[in-house]
């Protein structure tokens, strides 16, 4: 028989990596493999403190003044805030959620779920 049948190295290749249809991560995402860095954490803490300190009566005004991209980012921060509930924070965040939903609609939430860039 032909001499190339003695080697079984072909069995060890991962054929899937050569498939053209594979999902390729965006270049920006692969840069973010470093993980949550200090700046991100500071931004998160600061935003949450601001959100919690704004009075309920002022929320609507604040939300109306934002454009759609900022609205999506705000919704992301609201959801992030839910993950670490503290005394009374969740109730306040629920108010924010409602007001942002009234302006942004279901699409706002869908974009939070679907966006690859996290908070």
């Amino acid at each position, binding site marked *: 028989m032909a001499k190339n049948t003695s080697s079984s190295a072909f069995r060890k290749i991962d054929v899937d990596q050569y498939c053209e249809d594979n999902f390729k991560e965006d270049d920006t995402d692969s840069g973010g493999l470093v993980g949550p860095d200090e700046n991100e954490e500071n931004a998160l803490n600061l935003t949450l403190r601001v959100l919690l300190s704004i009075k309920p009566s002022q929320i609507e005004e604040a939300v109306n003044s934002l454009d759609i991209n900022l609205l999506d980012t705000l919704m992301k921060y609201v959801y992030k805030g839910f993950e670490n509930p503290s005394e009374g924070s969740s109730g306040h965040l629920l108010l924010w959620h*409602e007001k942002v939903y009234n302006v942004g609609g279901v699409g706002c939430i869908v974009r939070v779920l679907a966006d690859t860039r996290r908070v």
Partner: protein
Amino acid sequence: MSATLKPYLTAVRHTLTAAMCLDNFSSQVVERHNKPEVEVRSSKELVLTPVVISRNEKEKVLIETSVNSVRISISVKQADEIEKILCKKFMRFMMMRAENFIVLRRKPIEGYDISFLITNFHTEQMYKHKLVDFVIHFMEEIDKEISEMKLAVNARARIVSEEVINRRKIQIVQLLNDPELPQLKTGKIAL
């Protein structure tokens, strides 16, 4: 406390409506297979960002979506030991009968008390808004049921202990009135 209940449930409802956009999607890894991607997590691009909605530190809902399935995990309010035990037993009872519930998961996710798994096949057979209604209704009813069960347990405990005490009382009175035991009346024999 109950002031946060309505906003909590509306927030969960809106998020569920957004998350329950499911499509049929065969497995990319194994041919001819169709698996709920949120469980298998075979490909990163098919699973969306998981999202938490919390009412307070104890009660929260985790919603994880993917292209063809959504997993909803609920953490139920358990204020004291009795509620913890009741909740655990109640959830266990339901999870053992998960097949009859169709959308229930047999095991809850780590850190939560009960989980639902809704796939595109469910949304094809059932109305999406009704599924969302079901989950919200479930969340409302659980709290009520556990409170009711706790009241029932306390009421039964009270009745039982009253019965026991009454019987003891009757026994004691009978002993005291027994003519053949005069020394009891003089208190020389301790009961």
